[in-house]
């Protein structure tokens, strides 16, 4: 390990790694487009700003040659396979660049009959991590800029993909900030917890960014948009906000892939992924369920065992 | 005796005794299903250590000693309430008669001597005089039972009202009566009757 790498230890990942991944993606994307194996590849193109990246659907070899992978490639691209965004895709098999967490989302969507594995060419990334909400000035990934979810990622290596891009560099163990935060909140007295979340939810402006970026919020009509009956108030007031976030967390329980896009996209910095993580933790404890990179037939809340825990039921 | 454990077997259950009772009374003891109606209506229940239904119960189990030991059978008033009301037509009044007879014969282990004495005197009176003479009966009973003053107050009153005769004569048919007694005794000796 060279000196530079030594320096990066604990504070960042070598840019060369991203370059290598970028090259691998480009060549594979060009190849599959050229072969006609896919009609388009969903990936990342450089953004207008320096060190930025934007999701893109590329249909030509030329465009594919410009695909990148960098710490700024935060988006979960599986989003573009569902919802109204489906319309931007040409017909036929689609290539998609997927980080580990994105891959879990893809698997989840397959389990929910939203996409078919056969319709996809998945370019999986040996992902060292991406940046969080605050990017480093030089666009490199540092301990300060790495996304919280990546600090305790368990999905670095893609499984069951058609192509794997890049090799995983050595990764240093980082303090799991999110897990610590979760533990901290859980340790609070109940009233304090309510106060905490009341404060968080009160900031919500109901921009629905969290819903927009969530690969699993693909419903044609969200329950929370219905007004006959109106189960969740739609105006950004505390009651409706609280209900919305509880309902959202409940609807994602057992489905959430842990990409944390909701939290990243939240303009009000509400720690939404904590809710999702708490539910994932509970379902792991109760039913030994974890989101995986392989499609599962039924989610934990769509099945049951006769001897499920019922200690809470009188 | 009353609370002693009961060992049941063909040996401890005296079925022969029960058969005698059934034969004398002409009534089955097995028919009784222990509803307790006899005891419920018995005017003498309160004076018995085994109420009537239990007497039958003990007979069902062949427990003859327990039946005869108590004074219960002697405290039966022969009012026939039990017999009249028994849902199973168990003629308990006759069963009581039979039990007293068997106890009498066996010079039974009964504790009730007064009633037995009264009966004995009554029957002796018949044998001797052919009819009852109440004064004689009462006096004899008081003498023999040692209760010399019993009902003493009633005597003069009754005498003055002409209710007790001071004197009486033997019935003219007394020989015939004696004959009846004799022939019954003979029959029993020969085993022709119980």
């Amino acid at each position, binding site marked *: 390990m060279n000196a530079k790498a030594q320096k990066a230890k604990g504070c960042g990942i070598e840019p060369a790694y991203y370059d290598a991944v970028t090259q691998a993606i480009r060549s594979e994307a060009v190849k599959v487009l050229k072969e006609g194996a896919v009609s388009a590849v969903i990936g990342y193109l450089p953004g207008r700003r320096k060190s930025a990246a934007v999701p893109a659907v590329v249909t030509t070899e030329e465009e594919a040659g410009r695909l990148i992978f960098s710490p700024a490639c935060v988006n979960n691209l599986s989003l573009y396979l569902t919802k109204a965004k489906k319309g931007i895709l040409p017909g036929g098999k689609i290539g998609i660049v997927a980080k580990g967490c994105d891959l879990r989302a893809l698997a989840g969507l397959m389990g929910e009959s939203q996409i078919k594995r056969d319709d996809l060419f998945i370019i999986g990334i040996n992902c060292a991590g991406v940046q969080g909400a605050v990017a480093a000035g030089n666009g490199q990934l540092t301990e300060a800029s790495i996304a919280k979810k990546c600090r305790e990622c368990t999905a670095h290596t893609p499984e069951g993909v058609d192509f794997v891009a890049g090799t995983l560099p050595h990764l240093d163990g980082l303090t799991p900030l999110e897990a610590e935060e979760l533990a901290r909140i859980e340790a609070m007295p109940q009233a304090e917890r309510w106060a905490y979340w009341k404060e968080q939810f009160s900031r919500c402006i109901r921009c629905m960014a969290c819903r927009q970026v969530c690969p699993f919020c693909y419903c044609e009509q969200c329950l929370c948009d219905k007004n006959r009956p109106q189960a969740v108030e739609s105006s950004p007031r505390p009651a409706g906000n609280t209900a919305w976030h509880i309902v959202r967390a409940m609807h994602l329980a057992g489905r959430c892939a842990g990409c944390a896009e909701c939290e990243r996209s939240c303009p009000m910095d509400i720690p939404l992924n904590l809710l999702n993580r708490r539910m994932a933790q509970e379902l792991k404890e109760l039913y030994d369920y974890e989101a995986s990179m392989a499609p599962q037939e039924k989610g934990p809340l769509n099945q049951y065992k006769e001897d499920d825990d019922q200690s809470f039921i009188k | 005796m009353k609370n002693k454990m009961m060992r049941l077997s063909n040996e401890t259950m005296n079925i022969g005794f029960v058969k005698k009772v059934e034969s004398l009374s*002409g009534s089955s003891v097995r028919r009784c299903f222990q509803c307790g109606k006899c005891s419920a209506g018995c*005017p*003498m229940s309160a004076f018995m250590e085994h109420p009537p239904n239990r007497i039958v119960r003990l007979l069902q189990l062949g427990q003859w000693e327990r039946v005869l030991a108590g004074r219960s059978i002697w405290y*039966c*008033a*022969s*009012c*026939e*309430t039990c*017999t*009249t*009301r028994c849902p199973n037509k168990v*003629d308990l*009044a*006759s069963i*009581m*008669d*039979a039990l*007293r*007879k068997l106890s009498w014969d066996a010079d039974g282990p009964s504790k009730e001597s007064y*009633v*037995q*004495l*009264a*009966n004995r005197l*009554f*029957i002796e*009176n*018949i044998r001797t005089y*052919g*009819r*009852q*003479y*109440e004064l004689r*009966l009462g006096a004899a*009973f008081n003498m023999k*039972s040692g209760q010399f003053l*019993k*009902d003493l*107050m*009633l005597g003069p*009153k*009754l005498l003055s*009202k002409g*209710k*007790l*005769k001071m004197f009486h004569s033997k*019935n*003219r*048919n007394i020989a*015939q*009566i004696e004959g*009846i*007694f004799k*022939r*019954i005794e003979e*029959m029993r000796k020969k085993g*022709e*009757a*119980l």
Partner: protein
Amino acid sequence: MTPKKRLNYSYYPGCSLHASGREYDISTRALFKALGLGLKEVPDWFCCGATPAHNVDELLSLSLCAKNLKMAEEVEGDLAVACAACFSRLKHAQHKITHDETRRRQVETAIDGPADVKKPVKHILEILAREVGLAKLEENVKKPLLGLKVACYYGCLLTRPPEVPELDDCEDPSIMEDILRALGAEPVQWSHRMECCGANFTLSRPGVVMKLSNAILDSAQFAKADCIMVACPLCHGNLDIRQESIENKNQASYELPIFYFTQLVALALGVPSTDLGFDSVIIDPRPLLREKQLI
């Protein structure tokens, strides 16, 4: 009054009617005379054995009764019996001897002759209510017993068990009440019509008798009866002779005259009260009768 055809009865008074129950005998004879009925005592009858005999020796009891019944054959007319105990024993004997072949043979050996027990045995109540008839009684009333509240006491022997005396309903008889109504008296409804007075223990266990008889007296008083009417010399003895001691023992005051039904019937039919043996009883009924203007 003369019946179209004179009815004749043979008569078995029994031991009590010759002693403690003599007023029963007296009033019975007076009544029969008033009704124009013949009544001839069976000569040389002897004791039926009563309760003591059957209590310890049923065969003796049956034999004595069978012999008496046989002797009664000698006298014309159905056998009229006044004493409830004698009536019960004679009927029992008839019933048993007719229904139990073994017993019949044993009885025949005992009395040394055929057990001829066919003679109809009738209680005097039966004769009054059924043979003379209530209508006739009512017709002949001279002195209606108006305003006299009577507790009719049947005791245990008159009706039980139903298949033996065949006198009346064994749990709810009405023969005494029917007769009384015909005489214009007022029978009361009361609880102890059929309860035992304990006669069997009158000699041996008077304490028992006092207790049982007290309940009867108490019940009659509760029913606001002026007097009690009986058909059995043993019952009469317990209720009348022992009434004072019962009162003393229970701190009660009953003063209930005890009538034989024959006395009341005869009175209503106009037999002079002096002929009915009212002087023989312990609780003098005459003040009551005077109060009701019956004498």
